[in-house]
């Protein structure tokens, strides 16, 4: 039987104290009726987290996930060079979004430096050779995480595996190509075959850290997330924050189930 995806779950909430306009994560999901072999015919989801200390970070996170939705990079054969080429349109879009002639003094140096964001991108495409299967590919820079739940256990945690590995200095992609540093060194990739029943969860760092801590404690955090809907998501996040179980930060979740 042909594997397919259920309609995705998407939730987000700004850091407590910030307005929706100040939310600096971003997400995109493209979910084609017929999943094809690659590129625009693949299903794709991405989550980016603009570094709160950089300027115009929200615009940069948005530009990254929009680029991923419009045309994801070719993940199988990706190189540092092809990644830089893939980033260029998003970098131009960010540059054009900055009102350079109106930036006040406190924002000048940061804007010149460029905005920074983490990115996690996932593509799910028809497996090659005409099989009925689906395969997945993921790319990560920084600490937005992909979890794969299979047979009621956490089968993959990528690129971070332990809650203790989160800090305030994740690898970041810069909107200014001159400040990109050795981005390729920071790129993590993974991929594999999909199985019926697989749940792919994409989470920005605060939620991912909560998820890994709960999993280590022997809980099944995916069951908790599966119970969330648009009516109880915000309240549930706020409860975790107040209880000190989740860092107060922009929070984003995308979940895809293979059936």
């Amino acid at each position, binding site marked *: 039987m042909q594997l397919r995806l259920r309609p995705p779950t998407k939730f987000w909430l700004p850091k407590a104290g910030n307005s929706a306009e100040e939310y600096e994560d971003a997400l995109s999901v493209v979910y084609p009726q017929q999943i094809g072999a690659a590129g625009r015919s693949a299903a794709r989801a991405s989550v980016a987290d603009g570094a709160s200390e*950089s300027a115009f970070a929200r615009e940069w996170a948005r530009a990254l996930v929009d680029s991923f939705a419009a045309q994801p990079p070719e993940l199988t054969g990706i190189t540092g060079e092809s990644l830089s080429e893939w980033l260029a349109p998003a970098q131009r879009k960010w540059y054009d979004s900055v009102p350079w002639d109106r930036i006040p003094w406190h924002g000048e140096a940061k804007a010149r430096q460029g905005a920074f964001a983490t990115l996690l991108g996932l593509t799910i495409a028809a497996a090659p050779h005409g099989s009925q299967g689906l395969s997945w590919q993921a790319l990560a820079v920084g600490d937005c995480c992909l979890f794969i739940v299979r047979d009621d256990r956490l089968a993959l945690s990528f690129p971070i595996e332990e809650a203790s590995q989160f800090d*305030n200095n994740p690898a970041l992609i810069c909107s200014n190509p001159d400040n990109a540093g050795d981005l390729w060194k920071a790129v993590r990739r993974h991929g594999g075959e999909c199985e019926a029943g697989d749940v792919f969860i994409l989470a920005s760092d605060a939620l991912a850290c909560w998820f890994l801590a709960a999993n280590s404690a022997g809980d099944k955090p995916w069951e908790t997330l599966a119970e969330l809907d648009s009516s109880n998501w915000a309240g549930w996040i706020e409860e975790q924050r107040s209880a000190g179980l989740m860092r107060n930060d922009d929070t984003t979740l995308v979940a895809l189930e293979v059936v």
Partner: protein
Amino acid sequence: MPYAADISRNNPGCFLFLIDQSGSMSEALGGQPELRKMDGAADAVNRILDAISQRCSQGMDVRDYFDVGILTYTTDSSGNPEVKAALPGTSPEQPFLTISQVVESATVEDRKVKEPDGAGGLVEVTRKFPVWLRPQARFGTPMCSALIQASQALQNWIADHPDSYPPMVISVTDGAAGDGNPVPVAQEIMDLSTNDGSVLVYNAHLSAMSALPVQYPADESDTPPDEYAVQMFRMSSAFPDSVVELAAGMGLPVTQGSRGYVYNADMVALVQFLDIGTRAASDLR
């Protein structure tokens, strides 16, 4: 867990500057005869406030992650203490503005500076410099009166922000208190606390002696030979573990037990010793 409070608009941090404007601040700075101590003091405040503003900047706007106050102190010609709040619309009892109000109150000057041109040379560019405090120096040094005033202002702030990251006091002086021993008064300030830890007192010591600059010593024996250095070391808080970890990670000369004390040296790095969110990699200076 102390010194772990989330610094956010709901739960802002706090900086209170204490600036010595007594007559001795008109002396030349050690090793930099073209600069007076009062120039160094105004420069320290302006540069630290610039750094705080930039850290809170999102590009167009500034997020109110901090409240900031400035108290200056001198005496009148008869020796009566004068402790004043320097930010517009504030008072010695309530010297604080939010950082966005502080940003609004800056006088912005264009200055020409030389920057690397990316090809190994330097190029002159015009950059904007915000100014809040101008150099001033006259009469006596009522440091104890200023510390007592600071203590009252901090008690008010803490009552309104019991769960915030503890206030940080940045005192800029040459150390010659004229109204008694300031150490016990500074100790009283360090004994004030929020639920997240005790108030941190940091000292930028400006001296006419041209000894080598000192940053963040951990031991009294590492202080410079200035007559007030030991006293000022004792008035300076040891950095909390979380700060030591962050600062050491930035490659700064901070070890376990290091105190918030610098001597004829830059203190702007202090602003980086706080977590307010995901850092941009090249911000780590």
